[in-house]
């Protein structure tokens, strides 16, 4: 394992005052990427600010993760700015891991000293693990074939030892030793893995074109989840932590929900124009399950009644919402990542 050491020690448990630069109504904010945050359930949004040399407004963010026990700490995987972190509820951001194309990352909820980041380093698929909250990084996976990325990283929500990763080639990796070593699973789909979710032995893999696949034996065998709708591009998956039978699927033809593990799907009535239907992100408020968030282009959609009615909030940018996450303990605090 190669070890990279940085001077930074990430995420002291310090809360600093939020910057209060309200961007809604700003005159020229088109093209801003990075991270936006809201403290009022998405009614208004502010852009996070950079700390140090980070070009946050130019950061192509693919995934956000809020630390459960200390939700002031958030990390953002950025394809062009490396791994970014905030310890003040998204107000300011610094770089934790430079020179890395990051597509996914999380702080290990079973051991908060550990941070994982997935992506590519010099066009080689790479997974990094930090055992000390970002002070040092170990390269725990490196794919020797070029032009491949690790696109998704997920921990088993009921097992502190088990983690999964998905590659741009469709390959799925599994680790049973807390991310120290990784092995390919037999499941070898042909298209990019865009999301993974795992609880006990049930694992879902969402792939860009082939859609949703499920394993009930920890990834040994897989079956395709039926999806007869018109969609042919799949972007994001939400699995209810209380019941893995309830699924939300963000597709190029809208947002779908199933309450029976994907046997039946219903399309949620997002008030989007017929030509703009590509839902790129979905999340459900963990403490208000009837509150659903979705992203189409740079518009946030929110339903407070389980998907029956929706309101829209346009972010001050033309970029695409890639990730929506909600603070576990302050349900009005919402974050979006843009790419």
């Amino acid at each position, binding site marked *: 394992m190669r070890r990279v050491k940085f001077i930074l020690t990430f995420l002291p448990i310090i809360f600093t005052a939020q910057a209060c630069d309200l961007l809604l109504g700003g005159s020229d904010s088109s093209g801003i990427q990075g991270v936006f945050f809201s403290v009022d359930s998405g009614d208004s949004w502010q852009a996070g600010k950079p700390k140090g040399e980070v070009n946050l407004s130019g950061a192509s963010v693919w995934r956000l993760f*809020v630390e*459960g026990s200390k939700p002031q700490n958030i990390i953002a995987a950025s394809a062009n700015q490396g791994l970014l972190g905030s310890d003040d509820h998204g107000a300011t951001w610094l770089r934790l891991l430079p020179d890395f194309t990051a597509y996914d990352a999380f702080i290990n*909820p079973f051991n908060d000293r550990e941070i994982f980041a997935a992506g590519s380093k010099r066009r080689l698929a790479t997974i990094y693990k930090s*055992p000390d909250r970002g002070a040092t990084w170990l390269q725990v996976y490196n794919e020797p074939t070029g032009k491949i990325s690790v696109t998704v990283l997920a921990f088993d929500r*009921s*097992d502190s030892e088990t983690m999964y990763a998905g590659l741009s080639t469709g390959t799925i990796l599994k680790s049973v*030793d807390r991310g120290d070593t990784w092995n390919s699973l037999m499941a070898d789909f042909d298209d990019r893995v865009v999301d993974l979710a795992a609880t006990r032995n049930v694992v879902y893999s969402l792939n860009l074109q082939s859609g949703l696949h499920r394993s009930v034996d920890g990834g040994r065998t897989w079956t395709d989840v039926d999806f007869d709708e018109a969609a042919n591009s799949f972007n994001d998956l939400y699995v209810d*932590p209380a019941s893995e039978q309830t699924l939300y699927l963000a597709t190029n033809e809208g947002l779908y929900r199933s309450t029976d593990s994907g046997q039946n799907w219903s399309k949620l009535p997002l008030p989007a124009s017929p030509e703009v239907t590509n839902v790129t992100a979905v999340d459900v408020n963990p403490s*208000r399950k009837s509150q659903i968030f979705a992203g189409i282009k740079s518009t946030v959609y929110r339903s407070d009644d389980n998907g029956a009615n929706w309101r829209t909030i346009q972010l001050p940018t033309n970029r695409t919402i890639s990730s929506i996450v909600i603070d576990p*303990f302050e349900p009005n605090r919402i974050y979006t990542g843009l790419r």
Partner: protein
Amino acid sequence: MQNNSLAHAYALAGEENIGKTTFALELASMLGADPVFDVFVIDQDELITAEEARSLQSRLALAPAGKHKVAVIKADLLTEEASSSLLKTLEEPPAHSVIFLTTSNFYSLLSTIASRVQKIMFSRGTDDDVKVALAPTGTSQEKTEKIVKLAGGRVGFALRLAIDDFFLELVENSQQNYELLISKSLVERLKIAEKIASQETPEVRFFLNYSLKRFADSLAPKDLGKKLYQALSDLESNVNIKLAMDNLFL
């Protein structure tokens, strides 16, 4: 759990690094608490403020994303005000919530808190228990043997040694230095005093605390405990570290 008769609050009592928090987190997982959305751990080194304890009530009151909300709190760090706030939560525990207080001394809890929690005592395991706990981590046999010796039956401590190489290095160094501290060769002791004094203050503090624990478990000379306490006190009073270490190792 099988009888669906869980209490709302437990005190997990036993010495540090014995596996209390690990047990609480395992139980949280078995209860169906989501590790990100539902589990709230306060185990930092700083004292727990009244504000943090107050926020616990509102956090636990939220509907769980999974099936339960779980708080794991290092009770030894509660200030008096924080204990009072926590008491209010224990008096009216939110539905779906389970609170685990971890403590190295059950009798240090406020009596009003102690009377509202179910006590579970933790004691050291055997070397075999430690080996069983290490097995799923894939630790090599050589490393397992090393960890078993250092852990002395403390499962939580062993697990941390298995997954955190920096911590393992720190403990190994401290163990070597402690063995030199109680050896009889003055020359060697003074040499090591100089080496330790050149380290950063947190590492020196770790060594002193580690040595105090080893002293408590062993038959080392009685005045060693006094010297270790003095060295720790010197460290906190910003006395020159070299001087403090010389006094300790003389």
